[in-house]
């Protein structure tokens, strides 16, 4: 039994350490970019704050797109290669997009406020594009209008004491050439 427990301990701790390294790798070796991230109001009970990722909302031009009156702004991005499924039914296409892994290409653009340049989505593909900054993202929801919701980071964040709740903020990401990235912090724009 001693050997079995020892093996269990080695495997469990090894998997934990391996997972830690895998997650921390982009922070150690990735290139830094900043993307738009809007801080909400802090929750009194959890000391966490809602975080909205406008760059995670993108709009594709698809055939037979249905009308959508979503009040939220979406970044119009072009598809590099076939991203949206080849189907004439947009509802079926939206269902097929659900849960897929994609690569979002972002480019730095100077902000209107004159602060640090933020990276904004410009195109999307199913594989990383050489020479571009790729973010590997998952589709959490797609609609028959061609709108997609992508995961860029956490939806809640520890409430930062140095930032006002209504401050304009940006998330600092470190990105590997493979598209894997991690969020390292939140700063004022």
């Amino acid at each position, binding site marked *: *039994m001693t050997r079995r427990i020892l093996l*269990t301990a080695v495997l*469990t*701790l090894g*998997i*934990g350490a391996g*997972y*830690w390294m895998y997650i921390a790798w982009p922070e150690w070796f990735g290139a830094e970019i900043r993307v738009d991230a809007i801080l909400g109001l802090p929750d009194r009970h959890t000391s966490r704050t809602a975080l909205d990722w406008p760059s995670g909302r993108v709009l594709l031009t698809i055939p037979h797109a249905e009308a959508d009156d979503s009040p939220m702004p979406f970044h119009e991005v072009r598809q590099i290669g076939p991203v949206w499924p080849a189907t004439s039914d947009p509802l079926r296409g939206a269902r*097929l997009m659900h849960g897929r892994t994609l690569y979002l290409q972002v480019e730095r653009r100077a902000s209107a406020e004159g602060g640090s340049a933020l990276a904004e989505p410009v195109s999307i593909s199913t594989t990383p594009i050489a020479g571009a900054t790729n973010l590997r993202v998952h589709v959490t929801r797609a609609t028959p209008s061609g709108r997609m919701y992508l995961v860029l980071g956490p939806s809640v964040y520890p409430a930062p004491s140095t930032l006002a709740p209504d401050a304009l903020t940006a998330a600092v990401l470190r990105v590997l050439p493979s598209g894997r990235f991690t*969020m390292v912090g939140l700063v004022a724009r």
Partner: protein
Amino acid sequence: VRQPGWLDRESTSWLRDGLITADQRRAILARYRGRAERNVADTLTWLAALAGGVGLVLLVGWNWDQLPRSAQMGVSFGGTAVLFGAALVAASRGRRALAGRLTFLASVVAASMFVSVDDAYHLGEPGVSMWWAVTACLAAALVPGTVMVLLASGVTAAWLIVQGGGPPPWPFLALAPLLALAVEQAPDRIGAGAVTGVIVLWAWSVANDTWWSAFTTSLVVALLAASALDAWAHAPEARRPAFARATPAAFFLFLTLLLLQLVHEQVLSHARDDATASLWPALAVAGALALVAVSALVGRRPGGWRTAGLAVLCAAWLGAWVMYPILITAPTARWAWAAAFGLAAVLTGVSLVRQAARDQDLGLFVMGVLNVIGFVAARAIDADGNLWQSALALFAGAVILGWLARTWAASRREAAPR
């Protein structure tokens, strides 16, 4: 030492009726001496380990955000390592029970490693539950025990539920053999049932998410069918692994769940958008079922005709399932079709119970009864406020359950020694 109350009473009456002698009564009581106390003590210490583990996680969670990242990692990784170390010390001193509980506790606290990494690096995706499931399944396979199997099954089920909405959880295919191995090492109905439940949950979630993908769904249903084939290939009298024993019942339950959904969503609401998408999965299952039927008949095993009959019945349902969107378009005909599928679902439960009565298999019997109750409840809910339809469904359920009770009681009387 206290004896189980019922045994004390019964053995006294056996002695009074002359069925056993006083020596035999003492021998019987000695066999069960202290078992109840041990069971209570075991349960309490497992509960203590679970409460301690959860308490530790909550303690770590308290003011977690204020801790620096190095402290977060130190607490979670260090805590897990310390508990494994304590388990090793206990095992080396021959205290196996304590070592088992400490390993269980370490496997619970191992979750904190993945939680702290996700939290420290602000991950937006749920990676915690999958990696925790991997470590829990490894622990269950290496340190056998029903409680370890239950922990691994529970964590894996939680991962599958959290994963819902994301990509299909294919890594489960690597975890399933570990769970099966864990049950084989600690054969137990509860553990086997939990593992089978997780397999059905996985198959269900994948089939539901990717039904339009002919390839993936074929793979899922073919795996299920192969698993059922494996279990059916053994006669009831032969030694069957606990894992395989639980599988045919789960396979029937899975089919019934499919039928229930079919009646509710597909037949009555709208036609499936792509009728031919289910052709390949249905062919895969039908092929496996044909193998079952041939294997049961050619092998001349006891109950071969029954098994072949069940397999043909399943294949017939699948055929009907594939063909209905093509053949049936009129609303009235759809109702007739829905009624036929309902009958098939009830027949599944009844077949399970009859098989259970023949094999004197209580677990299979419970599956059959749950099958019937599930069907009746779903139909009553479907009626959606129509009281007479709900009442009709419940009356039908009552009649079927009454018949099942009589069947079981009769089979017990036949099985009793004369």
